[in-house]
């Protein structure tokens, strides 16, 4: 007899989220700790792709959790899912962070290039590629940059990204395609790709 392990995608855990949010609203910290563990990666991925700075992204994600915790009594489960409500808080925190800065676009994305078998030459090549690619990604408009990083670098599915950004999945596919085309045009004659 075979046992099939089923990993539920995050949008199917909404009922769990509501139960956890209700428990957290009643003062159960352990329930909110589960929510933090569940949405920490998503919040940080969005904040890092939007802000381009690791420290600022961590601060924004933490502040979003704090704000959501203090605003939990105002959360209405009939009007919005908890994940959508929380990600709206994350987006607003990142928007506030960008507003405080003079430059809204990050200079370079702090991503790490992972090579399967890094040798000395490969490391040098990886560094070059990393620098050029991250600069190009950072130069993309936010609408294309955020889905591109969340999908390829953070490994989030298109549905999860659509859920996080509050847009349809088709919009995410269009933005991903637009970002790929922009990068392709940029590196078309340089031989990077």
């Amino acid at each position, binding site marked *: 007899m075979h046992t099939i392990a089923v990993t539920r995608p995050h949008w199917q855990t909404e009922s769990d989220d509501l139960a956890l949010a209700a428990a957290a609203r009643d003062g159960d*910290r352990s329930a909110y*700790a589960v929510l*933090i*563990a569940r949405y*920490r*990666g998503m919040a*940080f*991925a969005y904040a*890092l792709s939007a802000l381009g700075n*690791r420290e600022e992204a*961590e601060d924004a*994600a*933490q*502040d979003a*959790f*704090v704000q959501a*915790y*203090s605003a939990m009594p105002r959360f209405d489960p009939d009007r919005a899912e908890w994940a959508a409500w929380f990600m709206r808080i994350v987006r607003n925190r990142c928007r506030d962070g960008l507003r405080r800065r003079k430059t809204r676009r990050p200079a370079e*994305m*702090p*991503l*790490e*290039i*992972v*090579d399967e078998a890094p040798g000395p030459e490969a490391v040098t090549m990886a560094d070059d*590629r*990393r620098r050029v*690619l*991250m600069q190009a*990604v950072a130069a993309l408009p936010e609408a294309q940059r955020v889905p*591109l*990083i969340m999908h*390829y*670098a*953070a490994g989030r599915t*298109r549905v999860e990204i659509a859920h996080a950004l509050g847009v349809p999945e088709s919009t995410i*596919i*269009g933005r*991903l*395609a*637009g970002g*790929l*085309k922009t*990068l*392709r045009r940029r*590196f*078309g004659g340089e031989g990077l*790709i």
Partner: protein
Amino acid sequence: MNLVCTCVRRRLAALTASGTEIGPASWLARHLAACPDCSLESRALASLAGDLASARLPEPDEQTFAAAVWRKVDALPAPIRRAVWWQSPGLLAAAAGACAVALWMAREPARVDITEQPHSPGSAVRAAGLAGTVASISPASRPKADLVTPPPAPPVPRVKKPTAAGSRTPAIPKLRPGLNPASARPRRMLASAASSTAGSTVAWSDWGSYYEQKGDYRSAAYAYGMAHSEKRDPTTAFAYGRASEASGDLASAMDRYAAVLEQDGG
């Protein structure tokens, strides 16, 4: 690059972004196998996606992250309970006062200009259009400028025609000098005026018309009331009601109008 290449390249990025596999039997796969430029573009996009996928986001440490969140939560100030306005005695008294003022202002009667109404007994009452006349003198249907515009000229009180038995033409009575019809105590003044013209044939309805044109509607109502008590006819009853309404005595006005509408002359 022909038209098919253009269509293919428009779709390649979307296919790569959506992760859709190109079936080997599809027209797109056949075109990619036949067109080296489009094939190169497809491989370039796939390579770009692979390069992006080889990048990794640095993940924050779970324990450190959660600890920082709880530290910030604990540093939050205690929630401030906002006072509800109806729980504050001062605001409650202010609201009650505002309601009282609003009610008092709502019950203050508006002055109505009725100087355009006909004064002659023959034309005052149009029985057929009485209801419309009553509606037309409602305060809301009057322009405000009419309320302050005085009548153009003081009227001359009319004199009843001499009866067949009358031996002489009565003199037109004049108001006593110094008596302002619009001044206070209209009833006493009217009584004195009536006593001064005792024996004359000036009708109370003429006095009513006079005071109505002067804008002294209380005196006009009083005069019309006296005329109505002498002779009960719809004309006088309607004028009585009109002056009563203009003076603010709506209850009396409604009684008069109702009597007129019943065609019994009050």
